[in-house]
């Protein structure tokens, strides 16, 4: 049985990974109610764009990252305009249409043969750090710091910028927001673009932990769903707590039972939360009940 500290450190890293991977999906869903399941496809696409810019075009790292964020944002806009907008507000159609796009992207990559061992991304910083008895590579700490930083940046964006406020307003009181002249279509598009850009940020931070593989795209969709359902979309704190819970549980499950149990943990969390607290662990169940 490994040290408690090891479990805690790796649980924290895992939590940061889950938060990063889920953030884009959650933000889009929380702001406009769009369940954008092309998320997993965009996530892997961003990884390949970064890889291609670095390895084939020889671009410097920051430029490669910027390219992958830009491509993801553009793809997000296209997905919104071509796929989501025509079926907007028909929730089931939104799920099916975006999921189809995600699957199409991933299977296209598979068909193109992008499945070999050469597809890896570099760590942001090399080397490793000793935390007491536990040795962690520096990149994992960058992942944790980035997850925290990104959470704070989003919090700031939602409060300090006019667009951020308008997005939150739209999510809270749609018709009042509309009555102030906020355009629904623009806000919905923006929420998808923002979510897709966040998927790219997650990709360049998380994918260096292993190889870029198609299946990680499907994993990303499952993780996004698990964290979002568990955390609810009303508060960032809910997402953070959900990521921590799921991160620690998967690490503990991996240690106690075996390494292939994480998917079971995600699915169990989804089912349990939907059964007990449909608005998420920090959701305002009371308000939900009042509305019913």
């Amino acid at each position, binding site marked *: 049985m490994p040290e408690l500290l090891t479990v805690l450190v790796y649980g924290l890293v895992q939590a940061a990974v889950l938060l990063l991977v889920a953030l884009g999906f959650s933000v889009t869903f929380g702001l406009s109610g769009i369940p954008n399941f092309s998320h997993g496809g965009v996530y892997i696409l961003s990884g390949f764009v970064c890889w291609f810019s670095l390895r084939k075009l020889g671009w410097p790292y920051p430029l490669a990252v910027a390219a992958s964020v830009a491509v993801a944002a553009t793809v997000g806009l296209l997905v919104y305009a071509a796929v989501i907008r025509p079926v*907007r507000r028909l929730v089931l159609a939104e799920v099916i249409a975006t999921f189809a796009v995600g699957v199409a992207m991933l299977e296209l990559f598979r068909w193109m043969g992008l499945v070999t061992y050469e597809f890896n991304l570099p760590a942001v910083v090399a080397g490793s750090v000793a935390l007491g008895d536990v040795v962690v590579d520096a990149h994992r700490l960058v992942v944790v710091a980035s997850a925290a930083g990104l959470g704070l940046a989003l919090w700031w964006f939602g409060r300090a910028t*006019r667009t951020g406020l308008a997005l939150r307003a739209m999510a*809270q009181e749609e*018709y*009042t927001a509309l009555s*102030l002249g906020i355009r629904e279509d623009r806000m919905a598009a923006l929420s998808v673009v923002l979510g897709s850009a966040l998927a790219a940020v997650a990709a360049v931070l998380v994918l260096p932990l292993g190889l870029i593989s198609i299946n990680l795209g499907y994993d990303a969709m499952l993780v996004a769903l698990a964290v979002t359902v568990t955390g609810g979309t009303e508060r960032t704190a809910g997402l953070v707590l959900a990521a921590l819970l799921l991160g620690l549980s998967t690490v503990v499950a991996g240690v106690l039972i075996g390494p292939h149990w994480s998917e079971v943990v995600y699915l169990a969390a989804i089912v349990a939360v939907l059964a007990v607290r449909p608005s998420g662990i920090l959701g305002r169940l009371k308000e939900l009940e009042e509305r019913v």
Partner: protein
Amino acid sequence: MVFYENALALNEVSVQLNPAEVVGVFGSNGAGKTTLLNTVAGLTLVYARREARRGGVRVTVAGQVRLEGQDVTAWDVPERVRRGLVLCRERHAVFRDLTVSENLRLGGYLRSRAEVEESVAFACELMPPLRRLWRKPAGMLSGGEQQMVAIGMALAARPRWLLLDEPLLGLSPALQAEIVRVVGEIRRHGVAVLVAEQYARAVLPVVDRGYVVESGALVLSGTRSELASQAEVQAAYFGGSWASPRTHP
């Protein structure tokens, strides 16, 4: 005319609002006041389009909205707001998780930063409690305070024509008087106000003219004094209900 599925919400109702005038629209629950204001503001069109897409309520909108003689019926909401036609929705329509200052800032979403600063300062001068509540989430405020935020938001949009939907709803008589004073001040600054209320009495001192709608139809209109004298006769609209203003849950 507005038709919801098979309920006629407004039929042949025509109202006019002149510059710097306060006009009342009175009528009981379901009379069509909100429908009228939403239609003028352009929200009914949004609702109609959205329901059509979902295959929900069938909404038919007919008739005309004119601003200074110009037909703006087909304009969308942002265009109307930019032109100065601003709606303050019923039931203290504020963003509950946003602070008072964030709410007010959002009110001026389509205006420049300088314009918003100026109009928010004006709103705070009219309604001093807003400054004190500045950092509180709007959802934590009392009904009266929320109404001030809602009106402040509308003012931040720099209206020339302000549509107020039941601003007195659920407020104590003292707060009602305060809001009525604010409406008077807004008019004094050159803004025309169309105010919908169930009970005419509380706002009567500040209105110049008024309309009474019942089941989507215009049943009465006139100046304040005409309405006041009618009021003695028409207890249904003005009299019996004075003592028991409606509150909502």
